[in-house]
């Protein structure tokens, strides 16, 4: 039996859920043994933060088969919520964080209805437009957001404990990802999850079978927006500074690239995709000016040679070898 394929696909049956989550928890616990400085904690925390956003987007893309080129918009809402809330409105950071997630859900609900009626490339351009609109608002409302230069994010305090330092953020991000993965797997096994897979295969067939297509798509869109919003809040808090780039077009593209690189419909794929695209630019700084050339080449070659994404392609290759 192919282990990777067994515990990796989102569609694994209920009893296999723990086979994915327990090794993931062990991995999260043991990973810091390899870290020799705060820098490692920071990079790993960023990987998990982006993995949360990628996982949410993966629910939408890998499951329901709906692409979004604007998910960084929700990251921006989350990031600016934890910034504007405490700074301008006097709302405590933790509450701002929750408000941001709720606001993202409401926005996703309102925007999702008309947008999700569109298909394929039209959906792509509509979501792209939404993301860019959010970024434009953050750039222009300088009185609230500090404009293109951005603004400082106030620190997060829980009771009397102020959270700072890469170590603390590593645990917060990693455990949030673990919870996010558990929720995602749960959703996958629910009737909604099955309905979404039916929509992915054929929308018309799903509708004929009595699936409320619009409603199911909207649910997963809202869920994925909340994931992105939470990731955005963490991203703002760990950096302590935020600019409209957080919700920019390139950020949205990066999220989609994480999902596709790692593998659509794969929980571990979201983590792997996020790891590749967060760690690579850090590692590539040794190439100085050639950084973007190398990054572009790597993205192209991974997609050409592992076209189903890193995790599913490797799982399939492993399965083939065992079968022989």
């Amino acid at each position, binding site marked *: 039996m192919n282990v990777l394929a067994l515990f990796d696909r989102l569609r694994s049956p209920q009893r296999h859920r723990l086979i994915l989550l327990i090794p993931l928890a062990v991995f999260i616990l043991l990973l810091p043994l390899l870290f020799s400085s705060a820098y490692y904690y920071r990079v790993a925390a960023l990987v998990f933060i982006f993995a949360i956003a990628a996982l949410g987007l993966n629910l939408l*893309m890998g499951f329901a088969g709906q*692409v979004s080129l604007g998910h960084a918009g929700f990251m921006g809402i989350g990031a600016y919520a934890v910034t504007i809330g405490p700074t301008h409105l006097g709302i405590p950071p933790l509450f701002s964080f929750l408000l941001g997630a709720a606001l993202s859900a409401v926005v996703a609900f309102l925007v999702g209805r*008309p*947008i999700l*009626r*569109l*298909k*394929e*490339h*039209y959906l*792509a*351009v*509509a979501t*792209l*437009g*939404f993301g*860019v*609109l959010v970024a*434009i*608002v953050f*750039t*222009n409302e300088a009185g609230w957001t500090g404009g293109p230069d951005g603004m400082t994010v106030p620190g997060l305090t829980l009771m009397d404990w102020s959270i700072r330092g890469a170590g603390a953020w590593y645990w917060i991000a990693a455990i949030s990802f673990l919870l996010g993965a558990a929720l995602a797997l749960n959703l996958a096994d629910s009737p909604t999850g099955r309905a979404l897979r039916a929509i992915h295969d*054929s*929308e*018309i*067939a799903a509708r*004929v079978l009595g699936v409320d297509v619009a409603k199911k798509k909207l649910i997963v869109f809202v869920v994925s927006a909340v994931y992105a919003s939470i990731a955005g809040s963490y991203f703002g808090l760990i950096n302590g500074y935020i600019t409209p780039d957080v919700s920019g*077009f*390139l950020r949205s*593209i990066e999220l*989609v*690239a994480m999902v*596709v*690189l790692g593998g*659509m419909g794969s929980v571990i794929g979201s983590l792997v995709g996020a790891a590749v695209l967060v760690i690579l630019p850090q590692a590539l700084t040794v190439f100085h*000016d*050639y*950084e*973007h*050339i*190398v*990054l*572009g*080449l*790597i*993205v*192209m070659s991974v*997609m*050409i040679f592992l*076209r*189903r994404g890193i995790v599913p392609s490797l799982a399939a290759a492993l399965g083939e070898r065992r079968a022989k």
Partner: protein
Amino acid sequence: MAEFLQFIFSGLTVGAIYALVAIGFTLIYNASDVVNFAQGEFVMLGGMTTVFLGYAGVPLPLAAIAAVLVSTAIGLALYRFAIATAAGANAVTLIIITIGASIFLRGAAEVVFDKRFHTLPPLFGSDPIRVGGAAILPQSLIVFAGAAIIVVLLWAFIDRTLFGKAVIATSANRIAARLVGIDTRVIVAACFALSAAIGAIAGILITPITLTSYNAGTLLALKGFAAVMLGGIGSAAGAMVGGILLGLLEALAAGYLSASYKDAVALVVILCVLFVLPQGLFGKTKVERV
């Protein structure tokens, strides 16, 4: 009135460039179903190569021709090494490949050229022509004329030559085209080359007005894609109308509403159009087989 005319002129100028980018998108999409997000990089390459050949002492007309050839070669290379190698991959995978190509080309431009803004001297000087109280740059007229000539030539090529008919056959049905003896790989390669050349020419024409830099392509690709979707994907007329409309919308929004929200206005209009006409202005309704 003079103000209005002024906005219309500037909108048409930018719109003509969006239209050319959109036509490049459409050519490649029709032949191969690939949405090429590296389309904007051809525009950048056309402008930047001309500028730097000019710096090296090459006379500008020669530099422009060389820039178009270089971009065409890069378009062919993109098809041969990235798209053809990944044949059969799904649409999102192909999009990510073209995005990878776009990052690569931008990175290469950063190294080969530099990170500064550059411009070219306008062909007929920069004394504006007065029309009804509005000023129009001679270079804008060259942009319109250039765009019009390209569209007419492209139409003649597609509609009047055997090769063009093969392009139409390929975009109608690739398997059927292959069955009647058309080498569809050659056709798709030609479409990549053509759309790279069109992009490069657009880049050279617009550089005297908007300047260019190594990262000018991203925004153009985004606008071109939006124009394509506004017009309806796959329709050449839609691409042109979409491009011009987008340019006009931006210029009018910048003039009458707010310069910083001009892109926002254009996007909101596109979203509204798509809500009413989910296939764009000229798109065909696709029937889903179950």
